[in-house]
């Protein structure tokens, strides 16, 4: 296990390095000089030169890259070209919206999807089981923004129980207002995510229900509930956990849409603003933080799967038979 951790951790670091190179290069090959963000259309060559010097785009690419990497190591994401404020603290502020949104939605989606998916599988031969299954299929096809707008229409415009958007200026210093502001966005993400999760939980449960080992347990006197609890849960958890990792990562990146529907000051809207303004440090910073998050989630999901399934541990345990 230790050897695996070292190897998998090394892979994580390597992916991070690779991602930072890719991120840097991708932004640099795009047309348009970052200095443009500071300039008006009728800027003189001297002004352009000054702006380029100010943002550092006059220096050769390798030098720019080394500078950026050096900053990253010191956890310094640079300063915004536009506002000249440091990017790091702004990202932290925005994460205070995006992280609770993503994590709560994720937890809620699991709470919805696990029992519903399980019952779907249990009832797969009945009309109500088939109906839930069909509804979840429909749920996958529905875009996030549409669900968001629908919820806004019902709960904000008609029932007036939740705000249609925005986030309190005081942030989490006003927890009541912050929570109400996040309720509809969380519901939106959770509903959409649970639709696809239900499918995965359902198929993992069906696999287990049709498994030979479950039949063996029953033949040895276990009740169907006991067999499911003792053997089914762990076996079904494997495939679901690997999907959960992907889903959580997707939610993190997918909050862009929800944040714009609900006008939330999260990471997604920061990225969109950065792109509009050619604000390279902002774009790089946000993308880097998202990449780190996704890679770390993947790492944790891999680890969880390994803990669940002894067959995956075989290679590192050094004993095959």
């Amino acid at each position, binding site marked *: 296990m230790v050897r695996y951790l070292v190897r998998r951790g090394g892979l994580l670091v390597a992916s991070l390095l690779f991602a930072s190179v890719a991120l840097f290069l991708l932004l640099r090959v795009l047309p348009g000089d970052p200095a443009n963000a500071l300039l008006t259309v009728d800027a003189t060559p001297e002004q352009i030169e000054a702006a380029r010097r100010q943002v550092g785009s006059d220096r050769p690419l390798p030098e720019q890259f080394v500078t950026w990497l050096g900053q990253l190591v010191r956890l310094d994401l640079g300063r915004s070209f536009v506002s000249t404020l440091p990017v790091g603290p702004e990202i932290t502020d925005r994460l205070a919206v995006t992280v609770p949104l993503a994590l709560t939605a994720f937890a809620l989606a699991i709470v919805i999807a696990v029992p519903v998916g399980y019952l779907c599988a249990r009832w797969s*031969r009945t009309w109500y089981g088939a109906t839930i299954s069909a509804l979840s299929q429909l749920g996958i096809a529905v875009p996030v923004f549409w669900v968001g707008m629908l919820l806004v229409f019902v709960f904000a415009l008609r029932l007036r129980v939740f705000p249609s958007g925005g986030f309190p200026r005081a942030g989490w210093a006003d927890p009541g207002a912050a929570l109400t502001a996040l309720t509809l966005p969380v519901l939106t993400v959770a509903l959409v995510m649970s639709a696809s999760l239900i499918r995965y939980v359902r198929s993992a449960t069906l696999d287990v229900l049709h498994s030979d080992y479950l*039949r063996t347990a029953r*033949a*040895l006197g276990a*009740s169907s509930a006991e067999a499911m609890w003792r053997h089914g849960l762990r*076996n079904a958890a494997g495939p679901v956990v690997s999907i959960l990792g992907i889903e959580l990562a997707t939610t993190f990146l997918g909050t862009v849409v929800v944040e714009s529907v609900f006008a939330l000051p999260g990471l997604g809207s920061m990225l969109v603003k950065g792109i509009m303004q050619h604000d390279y440090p902002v774009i790089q910073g946000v993308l880097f933080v998202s990449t780190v998050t996704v890679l770390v989630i993947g790492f944790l999901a891999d680890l969880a799967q390994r803990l669940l399934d002894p067959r995956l541990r075989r290679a590192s345990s050094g004993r095959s*038979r």
Partner: protein
Amino acid sequence: MNLLTVDMLTISGTDGRALVSELSFALSPGERLGLIGESGSGKSLTALAVLGLLPAGLRASGSIRLQPAGGEPTEVVGAADRTLRRLRGRVATVVFQEPLTALDPLMRIGNQVGWAIRRTRGLRGSALRDAVLSALAEVGLDDRIARAYPHEVSGGQRQRAAIAAAVACRPALLIADEPTTALDVTVQADVLALLDRLVADRGMALLFISHDLAVVARVAERVLVLAQGVAVESGTVTEVVTAPDHPVTRALLSSARQLDAALDGRQP
């Protein structure tokens, strides 16, 4: 008094087609019956029906009665799961064909045997641990296997572990559903000999299911030949082997002879 009485058993599928038709046979305590037929002849379904474990969508009608020594007979067909649970393991249980999938891949073998013993015999703690180790020792597996996961041991060892779990429940009837088909030929003979010994030692009745007449002949006293869900021939092993009546029996017999001849031909 019969341990197992199957009377006019019919198993029908979702489309109403009969997969097993009006099958009747009986098994007294300690007796060994071979249920033989080609694949799809309904032998495995019969085994599952005896334990009330038919897959969803299949329906059994007729009668299956299990009566342990000194107990009341229990009707299996149409019984509630709660009733059946008391029979499974204690009165009758199955060893399945494919030992890799029949064991939970995520649970140590010792624990799987342990749960079966705990449920059927109510043992706990160190008594349970000892029972697991002696159950494994009885099938020729050492302590190391108890801590192993199914993928860490060989196919023959897996099937031995499955047999250990079944036999440790001390059933009066052991159903073996093609228990050696998935194994290497060299291992097959060992596992057959093991089953033979355990059944004799414990005085268990054996319902041995196979498509291979040669294998059945080694462990069973009587055979029942199934063809497309219908019993076409029955009798002692000697009767059926020396004077096969039905074309299906003759086909099974000649394929067994061909295999024997082929194997003999390879002897030096």
